[in-house]
């Protein structure tokens, strides 16, 4: 659960970015008029927008459908009683969402658990953003702060967040606050490290340009350092958000009565594998949807740089 991939990822994006020429940029072609802007015209012969989109959805759906089919046949062929069929999981998901089938403690309880988990995930994630981004900007830009904090961060980073579990239970007790703390820790490192990397990879001439135009101090951070580091920051946010959902399950396995992690834990104790898989699928969907939202914000904020679009 180390955040090293985060750095590799940003580095790959940045080197990739250097290869992208303005000519590859489609919005320019619509209003280009002068001779110079002929350079900017997008490549011709593009396929219509809709079929490409439909094709993409079909391609994306084909693989999971094939997996579900394979899952079904493996269960039927082996005759195992330990793993439910996709249909049984589907029934469980319906009951978990709307009730009326099993009528047990879990029937129709999806909102309670989902909202509890979301609160903790987004709470910890938001806390990591609020602390991680300003800290990353300062470590990246101010030499003294970097010299003071970077070694400590490098020392703490390799410690798996799950190893903090016992201490976190001592600090925050058996309950949701402990889960929020773990989510915070897991989301914090990718955000800080990618923010630092984002600042460090900005062309130093941009800071020189800003200072000669009369921008300095806190205005420099707000108007230049932060927006310039945005590609790195969003890399960190997407990774951190993934870690947040991973850690919520660990966090909620510590005796919290609600949350998707606790549902999975209960399913295990009760040998209700259909419930376990239901919890897994719902986490997957929630994580996927939040990631889409982050990508949407990313594309809006980084609309100036098509190669940073998710």
């Amino acid at each position, binding site marked *: 659960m180390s955040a090293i991939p985060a750095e590799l990822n940003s580095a790959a994006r940045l080197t990739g970015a250097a290869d992208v020429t*303005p000519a590859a*940029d489609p*919005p*320019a072609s619509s*209003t280009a*008029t*002068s001779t*110079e*802007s002929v*350079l*900017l015209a997008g490549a011709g012969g593009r396929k219509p927008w809709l079929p490409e989109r439909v094709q993409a959805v079909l391609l994306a759906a084909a693989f999971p459908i094939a997996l579900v089919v394979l899952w079904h046949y493996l269960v039927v062929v082996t005759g195992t009683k330990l793993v439910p069929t996709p249909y049984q999981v589907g029934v469980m998901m319906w009951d978990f969402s709307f009730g009326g089938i099993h009528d047990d403690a879990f029937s129709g309880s999806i909102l309670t658990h989902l909202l509890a988990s979301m609160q903790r995930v987004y709470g910890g994630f938001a806390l990591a953003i609020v602390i991680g981004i300003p800290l990353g900007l300062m470590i990246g830009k101010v030499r003294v702060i970097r010299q003071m904090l970077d070694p400590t961060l490098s020392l703490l980073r390799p410690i798996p967040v799950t190893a903090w579990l016992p201490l976190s239970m001592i600090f925050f007790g058996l309950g949701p606050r402990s889960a929020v703390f773990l989510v915070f820790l897991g989301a914090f490192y990718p955000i800080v490290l990618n923010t630092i990397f984002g600042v460090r990879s900005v*062309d130093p*001439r*941009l800071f*020189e*340009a*800003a*200072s*000669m*135009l*009369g*921008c300095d101090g806190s*205005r420099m951070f707000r108007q*230049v350092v932060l*927006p*310039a580091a*945005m590609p790195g920051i969003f890399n960190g946010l997407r990774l951190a958000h993934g870690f947040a959902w991973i850690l919520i399950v660990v966090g909620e396995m510590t005796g919290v009565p609600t949350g998707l992690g606790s549902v999975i834990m209960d399913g295990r104790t009760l040998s209700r594998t259909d419930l376990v898989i239901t919890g897994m699928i719902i986490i997957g969907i929630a994580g996927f949807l939040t990631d889409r939202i982050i990508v949407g914000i990313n594309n809006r904020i*980084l*609309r*100036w*740089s*098509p190669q940073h679009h998710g």
Partner: protein
Amino acid sequence: MVNDDKARRRFLEIQEVTKTFQIGADQVQALRAVNLNIDKGEFVCLIGASGCGKSTLLRIIAGFEKPSSGRISLYENAITGPGSDRGMVFQDYALFPWMTVRENISFGPRQKGLARKYIDEITAEYLNMVGLEKFADRYPLQLSGGMKQRVAIARVLANECELLLMDEPFGALDALTRESLQQELLEIWARTRVTVIFVTHSVEEAVLLSDRVVVMTAGPGRIEADVPIALARPREVSAIDFNQVRRDITQRLTSHVRHGSVRDLKAVA
């Protein structure tokens, strides 16, 4: 905005400026005892082979680097850091990629906290001056090199800088774009009467543009010659007198290289 007091003071004075860089264990002298005075409104080109310290000198004037010794002052006030009275135009543009053309140009005025209406007026004026009204809402990544450099010029002019510092600004552009930008720059200079220090390694460009060509030589960087260009404007690069001036300056540049190599040979022998 120039008051009487400013009018009486000397504009840019560079006295005995040296610059030594520490590279690993070695000390590299980039500039030795550079003296240069520039008057308000002058167009001065710094020319020389790479490594002659011309860009270092420009960066010291901009305030991005501090001289190791010597004095440098504008209106008799010592230059201690970057300031909005001096504007740098970089070879690689250094535009803020997340800002539109309009936002890049209005960046300086916005830092001063001027009224919105006044900022919009200034921005529109300089957008018009560099002919980019139609591209005002584009991002830098959607512009060609020539257009980016126009934005960079407008950005420092909109900041009402008194000294335009240009570091090989047209070096990365194709010949046609470079020619049209040279003409545009001369028109802008004639209109605004801003003082320009222009670093280049093209003799033709230096003779075409400037009132004075300052020839610099390397190892360590110093001023070899300060040549006034008396040619009438507009100048024609194919004219006979233009060619004479060009040949004269080229000789000053290359004669040093020859002397230098002779010295090197003696040292080896």
